[in-house]
């Protein structure tokens, strides 16, 4: 039972950076833009978070620095993809590579210095409930915040006019332009939101999860976040489900290594990646289900006519 509880809690925590990054990318893709550079933005966020932390700034400021850094990095992509109408695949890849470089540059010197991590908060009463407390009320604030963001993104997309407009732009930017929406501007905002969320996801890794700076510490989570959006068929609820699934896979792998399973550790480490492929295959086979919430204009350059 204890093992179950600890694995449950560990899964929730491991899923948190993925939830941030994938929710951000979901909003970006809903607006019809495909930013492949999540990995780069997460790394930039992670590095700037650590940098601010070691500059002696309070944790909340370090997180803000990561968010800003992620958003700034996403702007590079935005300018290329939205203003210069570059192939979005290429622009996203450029960002992934550039972000890796910038983060390594910023993070140099901080390597292996442990970070004074953000601690779980104790909720008097709630955290002390047996089992329930350990499962649901012993997390750091960012875990709770990830759920707040889930609620906020769902509410925004499906309950507000701005969210409706964003989805409409993702379906047909030409029509949206025709009825007077500023497509490019709204897409810029979406891209920056995606960058900010990726930055926060990255900072979660370096300031809470690991917690220290290691070069390339995202280890493919940015790409998994991208896969999660496909897996979720562009619906926020399933982003959470998917993140838990992959978080669980990571924890299972660590647990397997800890109890000394008689398989090579590399095989266990490969599990999350193999699982991603398996899930993608399963989800992609059903084209109809994919089509329902799919932003039709995804990755197509847009230029207002006139």
């Amino acid at each position, binding site marked *: 039972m204890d093992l179950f509880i600890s694995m449950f809690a560990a899964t929730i925590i491991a899923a948190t950076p993925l939830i941030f990054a994938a929710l951000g990318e979901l909003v970006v893709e809903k607006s019809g833009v495909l930013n492949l550079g999540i990995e780069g933005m997460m790394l930039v966020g992670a590095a700037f978070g650590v940098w601010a932390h070691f500059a002696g700034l309070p944790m909340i400021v370090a997180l803000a620095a990561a968010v800003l850094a992620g958003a700034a990095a996403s702007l590079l992509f935005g300018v290329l993809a939205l203003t210069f109408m570059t192939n979005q695949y290429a622009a996203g890849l450029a960002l992934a590579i550039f972000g890796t470089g910038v983060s390594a540059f910023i993070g140099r010197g901080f390597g292996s210095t442990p970070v004074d991590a953000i601690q779980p908060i104790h909720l008097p009463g709630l955290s002390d409930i047996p089992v329930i407390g350990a499962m649901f009320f012993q997390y750091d604030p960012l875990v709770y915040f990830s759920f707040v963001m889930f609620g906020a993104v769902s509410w925004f997309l499906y309950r*507000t*006019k701005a969210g*409706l*407009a964003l*989805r*409409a732009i993702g*379906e*047909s930017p*030409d*029509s*949206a*332009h*025709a*009825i*007077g*929406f500023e497509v490019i501007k709204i897409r810029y905002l979406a891209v920056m939101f995606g960058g900010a969320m990726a930055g926060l996801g990255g900072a979660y890794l370096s300031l809470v999860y690991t917690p220290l700076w290691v070069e390339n510490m995202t280890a493919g989570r940015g790409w998994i976040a991208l896969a999660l959006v496909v897996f979720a068929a562009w619906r926020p609820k399933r982003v959470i489900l998917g993140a838990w699934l992959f978080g669980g896979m990571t924890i299972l792998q660590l647990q397997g290594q800890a109890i000394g399973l008689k398989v090579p550790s590399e095989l266990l480490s490969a599990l999350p990646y193999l699982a991603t492929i398996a899930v993608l295959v399963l989800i992609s086979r059903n084209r*109809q289900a994919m*089509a*329902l*919430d799919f932003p*039709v204009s995804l990755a197509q350059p847009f230029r207002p*006519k*006139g």
Partner: protein
Amino acid sequence: MTPRLELRGISKSYPGVLANDDISLSVLPGEIHAVLGENGAGKSTLMKIIYGATPADAGQIYCDGKAVPEHGPAVSRELGIEMVYQHFALFESITVVENIALSMPGKMDLKGLALRIREVSERYGLPIDPDRLVLSLSVGERQRVEIVRCLLRQPKLLILDEPTSVLTPQAVRKLFETLRQLSDEGCSILYISHKLDEVRELCHSATVLRGGKVTGETDPRQATSAELARMMVGKDLPEMMVEPSELSHMPLLSVNNLNLAPETVTGTSLKAVSLEVFGGEIVGIAGVSGNGQGELAAAISGEKITSAAEDIVLEGRPIGHLNAGRRRDLGLGFVPEERLGRGAVPPYELSENALLTAHRLGMVKHGMANRRKARDFAADVIEKYNVKASGPSAKAHGLSGGNLQKFIMGREIELSPKVLLVSQPTWGVDVGAAAYVRQTLIDLSRSGQAVIVISEELEELFEICDRLYVICNGELTPSLNRADTNVEEVGLLMTGTGSKPAAPDVQTESVRYAV
């Protein structure tokens, strides 16, 4: 009376084209004003400028006597100018009320808005259900949504861009009633069209455009169609030469009880479609757009492969399992409605576009493309089919719609197909080129080939076809001889409410179609 809208000296140029050249016009309150012109005359550009979707290079717009300085769609709305686009600005994945909410100012109140939609749609005889997803609506219903969206904002000027191209003759009449009602209430209407009869029936005044310039202002109720046509085209059109046809003994192409599920959520499924085409005739397929024409064209051409080979038979040979390339090898040619991106690769030169289907004329050796041959072929097509282009190295997207259509059609005809399927042959094609394209099709059929024309323009079908089928909701009626039918009957069949025509040699039986 102060004009509701006045344009003075509007000009607009795109790279290589002067779309609007010093255009002036004025519309009085409550007036239905036609902007008449053939495709490419600059009508749509002008409307976009009036609505503010496109800035003009020069000129001035006055609304109710006041100059409009900084223009844009938002300004238009404040001034009470609303526009119904030819290709609707609707989003398929959301509901009618959500679509309309997007263009209403202020906070979103879906419930209240749905009520108002019902009110307006009842008042103007435009029935729509606000809670339906747009993707489930027919084209006619979508147009109603567009119009209701405009009406909710109580416009002072309503712009309609070719509104009847997606309607049956009966629906056109209902639309006109609504427009007259609006006009009586004092709303001005700018009615863009290239259809003379409609303009003469509906409009109080007309401005005629040709090549971006105003070529005439007139009262269309007084003018004859011939006078209007001359202003529009600049010259008298050649008469069609239609010789009597001599049919082949066996059908060259037959479609047998074809059932096909749609590829997308928005598509139409084909239900038990059967048709036959003989050598020497032109067979038309009429219908309101979105009733399965696209699916039928893709199924016959081989872009979409059907499940059973016998579904489609070419000269006695089952071809339903073959792709478009293999079918072309066997003599089935196809000219699609989208010229850029389907019939031709937009950024490629014409010589490279020749290779697209004409590669089978010895342009490929040992896996290598023979560019010289492709060039020569393209040059031949340009000359033989009167394509106005700088030469084989002109880019496809640099050609006008009509010239690219002539090129594509020429390329396909040069493959000597036994059966040629043409979808929307004259969409976006200027009048001169359209006449040429139609004559080419007639000549082709009279030389023994079978021609199928899918078109939404009834006039065109009546002009060139020997027989007609009508497609509605994925079902095809038995064929009608052109000589024995009329626009009224076909129009009813297009809505699925007409009586099913008697199939030749079969006991007559009137069946009402369910909608």
